[in-house]
C-alpha cells in the first residue's frame, strides 16, 4: 500500500515539474532578462514594458523587433536569420508600427473596433508630410504614444488620454527651439489652458470637451484651413454653424478671407462667450469690422439692446416675484413660467449667429411677453398681499368686537344672576 502511494506521489511530482518547466520555457524572455540589468536607455525598455498594452495582450519584444527571446546567448538571440530588426530608424517608425496596425485581420484578434488606417492618415498629416521629406524632428507614433510603456487610449495614465493630449502635444509645440525651424507659434498650449474648453475638460473633467486632436485630427494632424474652420467647430456647435452659414456674414467672411468662427471667438484661447462680445461696446467683436454709422454697426447695437432688454425684464420679474415670495405669497407658477424666458435668452444668444435682428426678435419678443406676464403676476401677488392684510385687520376687528359683545353680555347676565 505504502509503495503504491509513494509511486503515485512521485508520478504527480514529476507531472507538476514537467508542467512548470514547460511554462518557464514559454515565458522565457532573454531580451528583458538581459536589458533589465543594463543602465540608461538600453535598460529603459525592459523596465517600462511591464505597463505596456502589447505585453498585457500576450505580445513580446520579438513581435516587434524580431529575434529569438528563448535563447540566452546574445548573438543567437539577435540572429538576423530569425528576423531580428533591432531599433527602427525614425523614418521607418510609422511602417514599423503599421506592420500590425494596418492589418485588419491581425488587429481583429485584439480589438475588432480598432481602426487600421492610422499610418495612411499619418501620411496626410503635416508630421507625415515632413517626415517624407526626411525631417526626423517631426512627431511619429512613439512621440505621442510613447515607446515600450504604451498604454491604451482609454487608460487615464496614457499620454493620449483626452485630458493628457494637450500636454503631450505641448512637449514639442511649446518648445520654441524645436519649433523655430518650422516657423510656427509656441503659445498654443498656454492659450488653450485659458480657454473655456480647457476649463470644462480639466475642471469639470468632462472628456467630451475638445482638446488638440478634436480640432486638428490625431494621426492626420494638421491646422484646419480657413475654409474648414466652421466645419471643425460645427462638429459640436452644429446649430451655430448652420445659422452662420445662412447669414450675411458667411459671404462677407469668405470674400475677406476671414476664418468663420475664429474671427470672433479666436482659436486656442476661446473664452466663454459673454454678451459683451455683441454690440458696439469696447469689448464687442462687431466693432472690429463695423464702423459707426454703418448698417452693421447699427444692427450690432440693436442685437445687444434686444438681449439686454430681455435680461433686464427677466431680472425685474425675478425681483418682484422674490419679494412676493419672501412675503409668504405662493408664486412658484410664475417663477416656473419665467424659466421659459430664461431659455429664450439662451436661444437668442444662439440666434445672434444669424446676424438678423428679425430672427432674434422672433425669440426675444415672446420671451419679453412671458417676462411681462410674470412681472404682472408678481404685482398681482403683492396687491393680493395687501388685500389680505386689510382683510385681516377688518376681520380681526369684527372678531374682537363680537368677543367683547359676548363678554359684556356675560357680565351683564352674571350681575343679574343670584350669587
Amino acid at each position: 500500500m505504502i509503495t503504491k502511494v509513494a509511486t503515485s506521489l512521485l508520478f504527480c511530482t514529476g507531472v507538476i515539474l514537467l508542467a512548470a518547466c514547460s511554462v518557464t520555457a514559454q515565458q522565457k524572455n532573454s531580451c528583458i532578462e538581459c536589458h533589465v540589468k543594463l543602465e540608461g536607455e538600453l535598460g529603459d525598455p525592459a523596465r517600462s514594458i511591464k505597463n505596456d498594452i502589447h505585453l498585457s495582450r500576450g505580445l513580446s519584444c520579438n513581435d516587434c523587433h524580431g529575434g529569438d527571446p528563448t535563447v540566452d546567448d546574445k548573438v543567437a538571440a539577435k540572429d538576423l536569420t530569425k528576423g531580428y530588426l533591432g531599433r527602427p530608424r525614425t523614418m521607418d517608425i510609422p511602417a514599423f508600427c503599421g506592420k500590425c496596425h494596418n492589418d485588419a485581420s491581425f488587429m481583429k484578434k485584439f480589438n475588432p473596433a480598432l481602426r487600421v488606417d492610422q499610418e495612411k492618415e499619418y501620411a496626410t498629416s503635416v508630421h507625415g508630410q515632413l517626415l517624407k521629406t526626411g525631417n526626423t524632428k517631426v512627431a511619429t507614433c512613439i512621440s505621442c504614444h510613447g515607446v515600450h510603456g504604451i498604454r491604451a487610449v482609454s487608460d487615464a495614465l496614457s499620454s493620449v488620454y483626452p485630458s493628457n493630449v494637450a500636454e503631450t502635444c505641448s512637449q514639442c509645440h511649446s518648445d520654441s527651439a524645436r519649433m523655430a525651424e518650422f516657423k510656427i507659434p509656441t503659445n498654443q498650449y498656454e492659450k488653450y489652458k485659458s480657454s473655456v474648453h480647457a476649463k470644462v475638460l480639466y475642471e469639470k473633467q468632462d472628456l467630451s470637451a475638445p482638446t488638440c486632436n478634436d480640432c486638428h485630427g490625431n494621426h492626420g494632424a494638421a491646422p484646419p484651413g480657413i475654409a474648414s474652420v466652421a466645419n471643425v467647430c460645427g462638429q459640436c456647435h452644429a446649430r451655430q454653424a448652420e445659422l452662420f452659414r445662412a447669414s450675411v456674414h458667411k459671404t462677407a467672411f469668405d470674400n475677406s478671407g476671414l476664418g468663420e468662427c475664429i474671427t470672433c471667438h479666436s482659436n486656442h484661447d476661446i473664452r466663454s462667450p459673454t454678451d459683451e462680445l455683441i454690440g458696439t461696446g469696447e469689448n464687442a467683436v462687431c466693432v472690429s469690422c463695423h464702423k459707426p454709422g454703418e448698417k452693421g454697426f447699427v444692427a450690432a447695437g440693436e442685437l445687444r439692446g434686444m438681449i439686454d432688454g430681455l435680461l433686464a425684464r427677466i431680472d425685474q420679474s425675478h425681483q418682484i416675484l422674490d419679494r412676493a415670495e419672501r412675503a409668504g405669497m405662493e408664486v412658484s407658477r410664475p417663477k416656473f413660467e419665467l424659466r421659459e424666458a430664461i431659455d429664450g435668452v439662451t436661444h437668442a444668444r444662439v440666434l445672434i449667429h444669424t446676424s438678423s435682428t428679425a430672427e432674434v426678435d422672433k425669440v426675444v419678443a415672446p420671451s419679453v411677453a412671458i417676462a411681462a406676464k410674470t412681472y404682472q403676476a408678481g404685482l398681482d401677488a403683492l396687491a393680493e398681499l395687501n388685500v389680505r392684510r386689510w382683510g385681516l385687520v377688518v376681520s380681526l376687528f369684527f372678531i374682537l368686537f363680537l368677543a367683547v359683545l359676548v363678554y359684556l353680555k356675560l357680565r351683564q347676565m352674571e350681575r343679574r344672576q343670584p350669587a
Partner: protein
Amino acid sequence: MRVEPFKRWMDERLSISTLGYAAQKKEVPLHRQSIWYYFGGMTLFLFVVQVVTGILLLLYYRPSSEDAFESVQFIMTEVKFGWLIRSIHSWSANLMILTLFIHMFSVYFMRAYERPREITWVTGVVLLLLSVCFGFSGYLLPWNEVSFFATKVGTDIAGVVPVAGKTMLRFLRGGDDVTGATLTRFFGFHVAVLPALATVFIGVHVLLVQLHGMHVPARYQKTYRRMKFFPNFLMRDLIGWLLAIGVLAALAAIFPWELGVKADPFAPAPAGIKPEWYFLFMFQTLKYIPPKIFIFDGEVIGILLFMLAGAALFVIPFVNRNPEQHPRRRLIFNILGGVAVLFIVVMTVIGYLA
C-alpha cells in the same frame, strides 16, 4: 308663523325639552384651576375647524403623486380664499395638538383621571394618538420635498420596531418605498379611517364627561363654587373660540403655510429634514441614543422606550388609584409628569434649534 306647535311636535319625537332641562341643570365647578377646563372644549373646537376646512380642501385636492402638489398649488393660487382655508387647516392642526397636550397634562396633574373617570382618560389617550396620526398622514398630502422625506424618515423609524416593524413599514408605505401608493394610502387614513375613529372616540369621551361631570381637585372639594354650563361656561368658551379664530386668521394671513417644492423621489434628501414639532422631541432623542447599547441596536431601544411610554399613558389611572390616600405615590407621579413635560420642552427646543 306659529313656533309653539312645531316645538311641541319636535319635542314629542326628540325630547328636546329634556336636553334643554339637562343643559339648564348642568354646572361647572368654579375654583382657581377652572381655566384648564376650557382646553378640552378648545381642542374640540379646533377639531371642528379641521373638519370644516378639510372638507373644503377636499373639493379641489387630488390624491396622487402626479396631481397632489399641483392641486394644492391650485388651491393656494387660483381658488378664492383657498390660501386662507389651507393655511387655517395647517395652523389649526398644530394649535389643536398644542391644546390637546395642554389638556392632557392638566388632566394628569389635577389627577382628573381618578375613579370613575378612567375610561374618559383612556379615550383621551386614544384621541391623542389619533391626532398625531392625523398630523403624520396629513403632512405628506401636499407631496412636497420636505413632507416626502419626513415621511420617509418617519416610516423608516416605524420599520425599526422589532417583529412587526417590516410589516408595519410595508403597510404604511404600500410597498418598500414612499411612492404614490403611500400618498393614496395616507389620504385614505386622513379623510376616512381616522375621522371615523375620532368621531367615535370623541363621542364616547364627551358623553363620559357629561356623565361624570367635571372633576374637582381634592384641595378645592370643600371650597369650590358652581357655574352654570349654559350659558355662563359656554359663553366663556365662545369668547375663547372667537379669539382662536382671530389667531388662526392672523397666522394664516401673516405666515401663510408654505408649499415648498414638489417632491422628487429620485433627488437626494435635502439637509436638515425635520418632522412636525410634536414629533421633534422623539426625533431629537433618537439622535442622542448611541448606535449600540450593549448588544442591542440603540434606535430600537429608543423606539421601544417611546412605545412603552405611550402604553404607560393608558395605565396611569389604574396604577395611581386613590392618589389622595397615597401621598408618596402622588408625589412620584407629579415628579414623573414634571420630568416628562421638561423633557418634551427641552428636546423640542434643542431639535428646533439644531
